[in-house]
């Protein structure tokens, strides 16, 4: 059991907002709900909340997800109560059960299916159900909605220009053929609707490309192997990465910091590597492979042609490569994390160099195990 001070708060919880004088929005004994708690980022969010001394963390996971990671985590913090609630966000009663009495909700669960209706249902309908449950509880202090960097448009930002929270949300995500981003943008819209109509206290967090041990994929922003050989598309672009622990830390702070309701935070780490630097390190640390550098104008022309062919052939090839998507991912922008640093008091705890080394070590070990 952990020691509590006279005010009934764990010392770590007092410092939850990052500075000694700031108050945490929620008390250590209040209930915090984390959806998608068994996921890549969700597990770390739960861990950080427990490390900060929060005593009542409720974890919503899918019915068939193995809860072992969360159970292990609960075992590490015997003084805290970690409720693992199995349920489906498509069920209103499961949402009511999960949200009941929660002071803070971190909504990390997301639809990552390939189809538009699949992503929409698992991002928007689920969020609506959770929001209905959230506004029906009198205890809610904040709803932290986890969105995505992918919802932005960079149409009006020149090459090399800064993409930040003030940029436009892409209104043509269907044309971009991105069900995930479409679902996330619509999810944000419904959160804003509930804020407007029901006075929902919310914060939106938009992580960039989350990476780290546990996820071996090279981001599409760097390149693609779709055509059997690795096409290096990012070249000199800075890649908007956030190390999984740093991202989880920012998400946790977005729930705890008082006075930031209605704000949106983009999460990218400091010292972002260029695509070229990332790939060079990857080849050095993990394995060497052949890659073909493709300059942006050539790739953009290819994507535009593909898009036109897709339209002409009535979708014989789906428009997976298209000019809008190409622009968003490979035009090359700079990214600001100033708002998160200033308003959340967030600092990426793991420096980029170390984060990359951890990631490469994980990928190398995993590939060795697969052999």
């Amino acid at each position, binding site marked *: 059991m952990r020691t509590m001070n006279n005010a009934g708060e764990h010392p770590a919880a007092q410092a939850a907002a990052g500075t000694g004088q700031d108050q945490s929005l929620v008390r250590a004994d209040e209930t915090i709900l984390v959806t998608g708690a068994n996921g890549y980022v969700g597990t770390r969010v739960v861990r950080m909340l427990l490390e900060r001394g929060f005593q009542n963390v409720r974890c919503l996971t*899918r019915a068939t997800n193995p809860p072992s990671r969360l159970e292990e985590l609960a075992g590490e913090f015997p003084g805290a109560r970690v409720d693992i609630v199995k349920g489906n966000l498509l069920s209103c009663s499961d949402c009511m059960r999960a949200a009941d009495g929660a002071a803070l909700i971190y909504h990390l669960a997301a639809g990552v*299916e390939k189809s538009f*209706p*699949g992503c*929409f249902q698992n991002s928007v309908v689920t969020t609506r159900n959770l929001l209905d449950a959230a506004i029906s509880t009198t205890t809610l202090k904040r709803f932290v909605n986890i969105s995505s960097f992918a919802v932005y448009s960079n149409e009006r930002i020149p090459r090399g220009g800064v993409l930040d929270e003030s940029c436009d949300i892409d209104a043509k995500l269907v044309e971009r053929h991105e069900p995930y981003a479409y679902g996330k943008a*619509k999810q944000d819209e*419904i959160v804003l609707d509930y804020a407007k109509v029901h006075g929902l206290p919310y914060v939106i967090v938009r992580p960039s490309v989350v990476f780290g041990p546990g996820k071996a994929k090279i981001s599409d922003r760097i390149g693609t192997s779709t055509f059997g050989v690795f096409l290096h598309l990012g070249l000199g672009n800075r890649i908007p990465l956030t190390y999984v622990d740093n991202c989880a830390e920012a998400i946790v702070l977005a729930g705890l910091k008082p006075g930031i309701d209605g704000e949106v935070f983009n999460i990218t780490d400091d010292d972002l590597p260029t695509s070229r630097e990332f790939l060079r390190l990857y080849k050095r640390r993990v394995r060497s492979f052949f890659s073909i550098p493709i300059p942006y104008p050539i790739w953009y022309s290819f994507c535009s042609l593909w898009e036109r062919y897709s339209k002409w052939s*009535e*979708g014989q090839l789906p428009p997976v490569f298209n000019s809008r998507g190409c622009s968003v991912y490979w035009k090359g922008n700079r990214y600001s994390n100033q708002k998160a640093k200033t308003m959340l008091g967030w600092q990426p705890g793991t420096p980029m160099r170390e984060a990359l080394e951890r990631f490469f070590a994980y990928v190398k070990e995993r590939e060795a195990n697969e052999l």
Partner: protein
Amino acid sequence: MIRVGIIGCGKMADQHALQIQRIPNAEIRAVCDSEPLMARQLAERFHVASAFTRPQDMLKAAALDVVHITTPPPSHFSLGKACLEAGCNIYVEKPFTLNMSEAEELIRCADQKGLKVTAGHNAQFTPVMMRMRELVNRGYLGGRPIHLESQYCYEFGDAGYAKSLLGDRGHWVRALPGSLLQNIISHGVSKIAEFLTGEHPTVMAQGFTSPFLESIGEPDIIDEVRVLIRDDATTAYFTFSSQIRPVPHQFRIYGPRGSLIVDDDHQILIELDNRAYKSYLRYFIPPFRFARQYVGNFKTNFGKFLRKDFHLPNDAALKTLIESFYRSIDGAAPLPLSYREILLTTKIMDDIFTQINDQRTNAHPARDPNRFKMQCLRS
């Protein structure tokens, strides 16, 4: 202009909407889903004027010629009937209904109203199945089929659908009388039903749970089925498996003079002609003849691709079926699927589920590894 409505705005509805948009003289006028957000997203993405949450409101407000029912199967019958009673032709996704009595009632109702019905057996209309049918109609088999083999298999590993099924204990597929099977096997069974001539074929089915599903704690889902079907003149095997790799979707039809192999996975049609070669020539000449057929299949497929007429086979098949159905509504063509074929498919599926459920009921509750072994097929 065919005025179209869609009830059920999930993944299947998207596939329908994409193909309907490609059909000249067809327009989606209204969509409906009990979940308003789902109805709205489909309407928004496909620029449909009206979105409804109650079918009766849609049927009343929008003057529709045909309604596509793409909801989960338990609602197919009631929605189909409501649409027919409102004067709309219906395209009902597979499985057509939950059982034979519902299927008969829907078709009877359509006949009484002078309306038309079709089922979502689009796998019957892939380009290679169309080529096979053309050859059969030209008499390639040399008589009635003697034997049919339909393999319609499935892979749990990659499919998002399976993940959502296994990840959700309350998934509607689990509640179907035939569970997972009911939602998938109609594609493979309808291929057989098309060529059976008797009204009451004998069905002998054996079903069991694969060791894979047992190992992940899913002993209630049957994912391995072997069926022997026999009518007056034709026999058939149907295979459904989640374990065979690569996952086959094949149909073989054997006649008295020639036979055909349809490989739906690669859109390949192979003719097995009855040509005889002397002595060792039978080992040397046929390989060249087969090679020529494979090259011919490549030319056919690639030629269609160049003419932008080779959309992914299931999409192409869906468009062909929908377009044919619309032509039949206009009176310009016969129904793409005979009612007999729809009903026979439903009857065979009913028999399969009944037998498998009986086997489950009669099985010893203890987990006996021997029960995975195929027993003698029983009638």
